[in-house]
């Protein structure tokens, strides 16, 4: 059985453990190709204009898998911790697909609610595994293997050896290295589907590296404190807090998709943390027609500003 996983949204968080799980159960995993303009155009036909860019990309990625797989894996991620909730668009993904596309393969669309901890995780494994086998021991083994993959993935994130952009690649390249380095470190925070899809962010991470900055992302920074009501907002708020507390971070860039409600609310917290630590912050809003020229100008000016500050700080402490 071929299980299709669209290269969008939660792919950038959990693809590796899910792949281990499905393959351990004897399935073949099919990933849609990297996002291009054609992906976006395919997605536009299935979304309302007001939907956020990541959702449009998601629909386009699903279109690339129609006819290429026997089942489509689209989890509905509800929450990870008590008292938190996920964005309604992300919770409703399977329903949205079924309401808009009539040529879909069968969906594997479990509700993922991890607020009850490990027990819920086992229940999830059994529920999804039942599509492939009735042997509970096999499911248990697959789940344990997936858990190992998940832990290894987190370790590799921390060392910078891989990023979610490498998930489907046999030769991981990790975070781009500053070339040549101007000894600046810029933390870039945001959801992984915004940070690791170079189509969506116009090669943001590589551009920063070419401007000489070392890039830190939430995955590299490690586990974030706090859940802050929105399940995934720790990628913004938690990572920003962690980044500004870390010595040697010269600037912070928050990347958000235009029209993202949770990000819009939480940006204020990001600004607060950065302002408290007196670290310059820039907010980059991504949209389907965001011009590249504007983005490049902003990045260059931001890096100039950080260098300027750094030189000034150096000369003051030198006196």
């Amino acid at each position, binding site marked *: 059985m071929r299980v299709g996983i669209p290269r969008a949204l939660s792919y950038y968080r959990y693809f590796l453990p899910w792949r281990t799980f499905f393959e351990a159960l004897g399935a073949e995993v099919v990933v849609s190709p990297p996002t291009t*303009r054609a992906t976006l155009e395919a997605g536009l036909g299935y979304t309302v204009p007001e939907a956020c860019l990541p959702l449009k990309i998601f629909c386009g990625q699903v279109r690339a898998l129609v006819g290429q797989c026997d089942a489509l894996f689209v989890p509905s991620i509800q929450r990870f911790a008590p008292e938190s909730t996920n964005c309604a668009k992300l919770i409703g993904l399977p329903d949205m697909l079924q309401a808009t596309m009539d040529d879909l393969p069968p969906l594997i669309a479990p509700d993922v609610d991890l607020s009850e901890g490990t027990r819920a995780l086992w229940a999830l494994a059994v529920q999804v595994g039942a599509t492939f086998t009735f042997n509970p021991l096999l499911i248990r083994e697959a789940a344990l293997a997936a858990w190992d993959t998940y832990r290894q993935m987190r370790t590799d994130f921390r060392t910078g050896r891989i990023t979610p952009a490498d998930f489907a690649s046999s030769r991981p390249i990790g975070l781009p290295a500053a070339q040549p380095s101007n000894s600046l470190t810029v933390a870039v925070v945001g959801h992984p589907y915004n940070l690791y899809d170079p189509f969506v962010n116009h090669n943001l991470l590589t551009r920063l590296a070419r401007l000489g900055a070392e890039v830190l992302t939430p995955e590299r920074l490690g586990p974030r404190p706090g859940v802050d009501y929105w399940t995934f907002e720790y990628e913004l708020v938690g990572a920003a807090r962690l980044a500004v507390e870390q010595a040697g971070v010269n600037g912070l860039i928050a990347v958000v998709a235009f029209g993202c409600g949770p990000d819009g609310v939480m940006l204020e917290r990001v600004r607060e943390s950065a302002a408290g630590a007196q670290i310059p912050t820039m907010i980059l809003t991504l949209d389907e027609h965001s011009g590249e020229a504007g983005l490049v100008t*902003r990045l260059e000016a931001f890096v100039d500003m950080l260098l300027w500050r750094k030189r*000034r700080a150096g000369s003051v402490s030198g006196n």
Partner: protein
Amino acid sequence: MLEVFLGIDVGSVTTKIAAVDREGQLTASLYRRTEGRPIEVVQESLRQIQAILPTDVDVAGVGTTGSGRQLAAVVVGADLVKNEITAHAVAALHFVPDVHTVMDIGGQDSKLIILEDGIVVDFAMNSVCAAGTGSFLEQQAHRLNISIEELGRRAMRSRHPVRIAGRCTVFAESDMIHKQQMGHPVDDILYGLCQALVRNYLNNLALGKMLRPPVVFQGGVAANAGVVRAFAEALETEVIVPPQHEVMGALGAALLVRERMNGQPTRFRGFGAAEIEYRTSSFECRACPNRCEIAEIRVGREVVARWGGRCDRWEMA
């Protein structure tokens, strides 16, 4: 022999050139429309500035800035390509060394730069919405059959400005028509328009930022006395408009390249660059579904620059 550094600012609507001497003094400047053909206009501007400068002038360095900075750099042979934020900040500091706030409003975009002790600490840029820019004012002036210069003068005469919605050009326009049909004097509508632009600028760019004096206002729109007055009223402080406010980006680029060159030879192609025939063409790359539009610039048969791709396959500059 006079040694100068040239700064060229190719904006979406206008092109500016500034020449500074070794001491950083502005010796000549030029301001003209880009007319949608940046290469020819840069070349013509080069000829014009050459005519203004002394004949024995020696160009020791060239810096470019503005949205057409890459293109201009190829055409003239530049030593430095700099973003507009840095260029504008450097120019403002040159005139007002203790400046805290730099506002720049050009034809298609607007910027806000916050400085602290002579360095940029924060900035914001608006390049998507044109409601707060010069093009908007120009369109509305045109609709009322008033020249852009006259708009500023007449707005200054207003005593009871009417409130115009400034969030979007479309709303502003229908609001203006409504006020005009209600019989409000044109002067009051015009000043209301200036206030709408200022409100839009402050709402879009100044969110959460402290705009402390000294405030410097530059860019083409700073020529409009009505907008200057509206800013001064909204910020409750004096708004300084530098004498060469419209060429500040070019001046910044010139000052930056002056700092950069330490006697190294310049890459400037010479004023003869105005006579080189640049040919441009474009094609759609079919290597992947992105179908990027690649622009190519040639001199004779030689490709001198190519860009526009999402990947590096074709890029060269």
